[in-house]
């Protein structure tokens, strides 16, 4: 009897494992492999089994029946990670209020957003899609893999840190809006900090109330007349920050407002993982490195606002050389397909090496998002998230030809060209018919 039940359990669990399919099998052959963390293989293969990288080397024997992708003459890099976007969302800002920490971008995903395809066409396999910067405290962001064609649930990366969007400076204080009938508090940077402090003070009180209640509930003496405090979703999110369950990603351009926010974080004990945009990070590179706070920035997009008027192109390279973890982001459904071009500029503005430049859009954003164990470089055991380029990815003449996630090809330029050719053929035939009909 026992053997039967054990046997049954084994068969059942095997069935469960088999049904839980994660990724596909793929063998990429003969490409120049830029692993990012473990050097370059001038001519090598990558074997992906069940979505995981199983082997990297030369002349790998293809297992039977596996799909083979010839990458001769091409460059194979880890899928690019964009750590600041607003794509795949139905809406970006909760603009009616200043504090909206209760909202979650996870609730407004749109898996049919064309921008997902745009991202894939630029070699991007993973994005951190965020609430907008209209509020001092925005909402909870989410990390997605660009699995075009799949459901929104399948795109969510559960391994990533939970992050809450904060914003400082001109956007939350609505500095660049036309005259409003009723200006919304706060309209200055000091107001922005005051309102963030206010919410954290409220959250602290709320947290203490709940801690007291839970403690009292356990003690049997007062249990009878005990009433729980009212659950407040807005403050719950901030309590998660205080308890370390969620980290801050803060939109800040100026050096001084970043330093002030660091003070705030120390006042309440929450963690800042990254400053977004941080045009003036180079001014406080040492401070950021000491606090172990990274930056997620544009390379050279500047001078469109006063707070971005001192954003120099050397920012990324200089901060990198001074020990800050730097990633380059797009914050745009157009720029998302040119991240590798931006990374290349750090070779001119700051003399980063090719290897250092490539890290800015691969392993660095992975570390910032807390997913460096599964993506960000080509290493055995990581996910088979890969982008293939026809020239070196840091050349201005390069083009992404294939984008692969967990061993499955999600973007194939050759396929796209074929489809376009067929569409044009059909169009021409339609027009011929029209003309023929008229005659």
């Amino acid at each position, binding site marked *: 009897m026992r053997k039967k039940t054990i046997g049954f359990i084994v068969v059942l669990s095997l069935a469960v494992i088999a049904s839980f399919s994660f990724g596909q099998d793929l063998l990429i052959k003969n490409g120049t492999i830029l692993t990012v963390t473990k050097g370059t293989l001038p001519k090598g293969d990558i074997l992906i089994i069940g979505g995981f990288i199983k082997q990297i080397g030369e002349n790998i024997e293809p297992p039977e029946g596996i799909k083979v992708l010839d990458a001769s003459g091409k460059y194979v890099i880890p899928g690019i990670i964009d750590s600041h976007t607003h794509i795949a969302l*139905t809406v970006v800002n*909760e603009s009616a209020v200043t504090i909206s920490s*209760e*909202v*979650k971008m996870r609730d407004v995903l749109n898996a*049919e957003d*064309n921008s997902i395809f745009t991202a894939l066409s630029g070699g991007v396999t993973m994005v951190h899609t965020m609430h907008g910067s209209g509020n001092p405290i925005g909402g909870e962001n989410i990390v997605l893999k660009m699995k075009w064609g799949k459901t929104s649930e399948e795109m969510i990366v559960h391994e990533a840190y939970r992050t809450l969007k904060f914003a400082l400076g001109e956007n939350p204080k609505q500095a660049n809006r036309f005259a409003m009938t009723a200006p919304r508090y706060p309209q200055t940077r000091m107001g922005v900090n005051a309102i963030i402090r206010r919410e954290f003070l409220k959250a602290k009180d709320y947290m203490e109330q709940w801690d007291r209640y839970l403690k009292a509930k356990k003690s049997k003496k007062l249990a009878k007349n005990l*009433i729980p405090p009212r659950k407040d979703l807005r403050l719950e999110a901030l309590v998660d920050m205080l308890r370390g369950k969620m980290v801050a990603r803060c939109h800040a351009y100026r050096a001084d407002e970043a330093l002030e926010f660091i003070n705030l974080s120390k006042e309440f004990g929450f963690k800042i993982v990254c400053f977004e945009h941080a045009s003036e990070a180079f001014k406080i590179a040492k401070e950021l490195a000491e606090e172990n706070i990274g930056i997620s920035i544009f390379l050279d997009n500047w001078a469109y606002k006063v707070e971005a008027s001192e954003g120099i192109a050397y920012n990324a390279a200089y901060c990198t050389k001074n020990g800050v973890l730097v990633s380059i982001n797009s914050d745009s459904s157009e720029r998302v397909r040119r991240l590798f071009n931006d990374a290349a500029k750090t070779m001119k503005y700051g003399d980063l090496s090719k290897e250092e430049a490539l890290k800015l859009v691969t392993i660095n954003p992975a570390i910032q998002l807390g997913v460096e164990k599964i993506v960000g470089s080509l290493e055995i055991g990581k996910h088979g998230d890969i982008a293939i380029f026809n020239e070196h990815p840091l050349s201005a003449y390069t083009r992404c030809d294939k984008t692969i996630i967990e061993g499955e090809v999600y973007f194939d330029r050759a396929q796209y060209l074929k489809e376009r050719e067929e569409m044009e053929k059909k169009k021409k035939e339609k027009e011929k018919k029209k003309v023929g009909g008229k005659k």
Partner: protein
Amino acid sequence: MKTQKKFIFVFLLLAFFGLTISSSARVGPTYAIINCKIFPVSGPPVENGVIVIRDGLIESLGPLEKISIPEDAEVIKADGMFAYPGLIDAHTNVFLEVKKEEPQRPTGIPMQIQGQETKHHPELEAFNLLKPKKSTLENLHKIGITTVLVVPEKGIYAGQSVLLNLNGEKAEPMLIKNSFALHINFSTARGAYPSSLMGTVALLKQSFLDTEYYSSYKSRFSRFSKGLKRPEYDPFLEALIPFVVEKKPVVFNCANLEDIKRALRVIKEFKLNGYLTGANEAWKVASLLIKAKVPLLVSLDFKPPFTSLYANRGKELKEKAEKEIYPANASNLHEQGIKFALTSHGVKKTSDILKNIQKAIKAGLPKEEALKALTIIPAQFLGVDDILGSLEPGKIANIILTSEEIFEEKAKVQRVFVDGFSFEIKQPPKGVKKASLSIGGKWRATVSGPMGEMEMTVEIEQERNQISGTISSDFGQWEISDGLLSENKLTFTISATIMGESMDMAFTGTAEKDSIEGTISFMDGSAELKATKIPDAFY
């Protein structure tokens, strides 16, 4: 002595019942519909069938041999027509007065106050907004709809729906069930909180949490009030208690597949008695729906939602999706074994409802399933399947008689019974031609007759050659019905109320692009009408 007491007792009992019976609604007629093919939905079709209707209910039905026709029944010869249960449309907005909503802009809101000023109205009852119109009634009867769930439209908490039996022009006799469900839209408050979809989701969760908290606090207080601060009355939360705590139905309006997911998550988290409506992309999340087992009201609107791939890749693809892909929603759901009702939600023109049912059938939905989705299934979802949804003795006599099998191209509804009252569908008179022009819009009319000259404004709605609308004057608003525009010959009936007296007046005349001329005839005479078109305002 004992028998005397008994007699008095029985007498009083009868008198009591007699009183109650006599104080109920008007007594319906008795009919026997003979020589029809009956499709009861709850059983196999009956050839050469007879249906006996008495006082609003089906008394008996069956083949001619088995049914005895009562003496007091008025015999209606169906001449081989087909008899079906009256169709139930489980999501409409008919009879609702559309008020222009003021955009909510926070003018002069003092600083430091966040936009919490939004007024939600979950307590709003659709029944209180009803303004039944004869022409709408006739249009619905024409396509066989006898029962409707009228749903309030605007707002995140739109309000509570009402189930009506389309038996006339007054709201009270139509009422079957009031406050059937709370209806929720995934919309926003535009300019006030929540102004974004994620804010709306957060608001729903917070409202439900607060309702549970409020309700448990209240019940706690009612048990031990000493030493406990009394709960502050909150009408908003009060209105939500029946739905969140007592689990009355909550219907989520889902414009796209992500809305369906959002709704299912909320329903699960708060263990609501949840329903989904709209859901024209439901087939895309069939596996989730199978698991969730939530009643599904599927709209016959085939337009791809704005979030969809099909809506953002050019006009051609969008039109293709509307023609080919979305009409197959219902048949896909059926193949997956998912139970659903069909509704007209989102379909602008009444005539399109039937067209879209036919499209859904053409796309693969079996005809019998379409019929079920408009009869017994909505009856079950609405909790009225003991009295509606099929032709069975004891159920309400909502019956439609069609010239061909229902939903066929040429099938026309000839007669409709609602609550046992007969409504003959006016067929367009023979020799009626297509309208040669469009006269929809606003007209300024002068009527000159025995009472002198009067100014009136005429608002005309035109659907092909059917005309309806209203005439507004110092006397009030009168309805235009039975209107027909045959080429340029215009005829219609005006249902006027003058000094408390209601009378019907007939108009005959001709219409040109910018002018209408003709004669209004009434009991004691006639008057001349001349109207000129008021140009459409520029928006």
